[in-house]
């Protein structure tokens, strides 16, 4: 009797331990959500000071690219009605790179651009004078859905990022992931932005029809 016992394996069978641990692992994998801090960055204008009203800015109509979105999520782009926002990024890009009436600095900027971007300058007198003057204005209604607003805002951002990225010879995605964590990256970001400010103005939504 004793002999037969001692012949049995003294080890505890640990093979199924791995299965138990796997179950735990899968449970954690499924239940946890990795917090994502991705999003579209926007800087709001400073608050209004009643004693110090913002200066009246006389901008030519041609230098403003107006996008209106109404409560039904319809768009009015530069006075033209449309239902979807598709293709808006290309139009904004053309608007920004129009160079109808560049001053001295803008001409220097124009000459510094790569040929692929220079080729996009239409020099349409009805469009923006130069990138320093160009403003994209997005105006919504209180009834506009957030999703539509974000889509339009996203496209406006895309237009600018496309230009920046093309200037420094990068992919748009590559440019956007630059965070400026070291000097080389920061220099690259600045080189893309130089002279072409990202001028996206978000007007206060109006209350009509909400």
């Amino acid at each position, binding site marked *: 009797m004793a002999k037969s016992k001692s012949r049995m394996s003294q*080890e505890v069978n*640990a*093979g199924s*331990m*791995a299965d*138990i*641990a*796997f179950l*735990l*692992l899968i449970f*954690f*994998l499924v239940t*946890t*959500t*990795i*917090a*994502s*801090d*991705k*999003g*579209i*960055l*926007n*800087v*709001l*204008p*400073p*608050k*209004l000071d009643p004693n110090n009203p913002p200066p009246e800015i006389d901008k030519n109509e041609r230098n403003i690219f107006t996008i209106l979105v109404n409560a039904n999520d319809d768009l009015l782009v530069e006075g033209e009605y449309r239902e979807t926002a598709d293709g808006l990024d290309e139009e904004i890009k053309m608007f920004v790179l129009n160079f109808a009436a560049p001053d001295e600095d803008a001409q220097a900027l124009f000459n510094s651009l790569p040929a692929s971007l220079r080729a996009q300058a239409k020099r349409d007198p009805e469009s923006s004078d130069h990138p320093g003057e160009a403003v994209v204005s997005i105006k*919504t*209604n*209180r*009834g*506009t*859905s*957030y*999703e539509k*607003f*974000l*889509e339009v*805002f*996203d496209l406006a*951002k*895309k237009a600018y*990022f496309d230009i920046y990225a093309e200037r420094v010879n990068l992919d748009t995605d590559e440019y*956007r*992931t630059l*965070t*400026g*964590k070291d000097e080389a990256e920061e220099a690259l970001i600045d080189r893309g932005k130089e002279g072409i400010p990202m001028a996206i103005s978000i007007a*206060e*939504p109006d209350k009509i029809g*909400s």
Partner: protein
Amino acid sequence: MAKFKKKTKTSESIPTSALPDIIFMLLFFFMVTTVLREQEILVEQKIPQATQLQKLQKKTLISYIYIGKPKNTALYGSEPRVQANDALMNTTDIIQWVNRERDALPEADRGMITISMKVDKDVKMGPISDVQTELREADARRVLYASVGKVVRN
């Protein structure tokens, strides 16, 4: 022939006793790296999609604000509400909340506070604009519209 006999004597089973340790190491890795949600979200959150996503470098500078239709409509109504930390609040309380969040940051970083707005798809621009007006008032002007990546189809 003798050689063959010797070979067959060696144990054929792979020692699996170390396998649980390896799996446990994986398990601990995931347990440590994942952040458990410390607050209950009281509003609906269907985050919209976008393409031009950017990541912020310093996570500590971000404060979260949730906007959406309350999940418990019987208690809070069906109009979009604002949630910060773990309670719903009125838009008028946002300034106070921002100031509290800002005071929790180290002094050098206070100007760089970023509000991540996690807004439900179905919310209209009205409430969002009200929140943004309050944020401007509180001088927390860096806003991140939280969104998830969209798969671009060509």
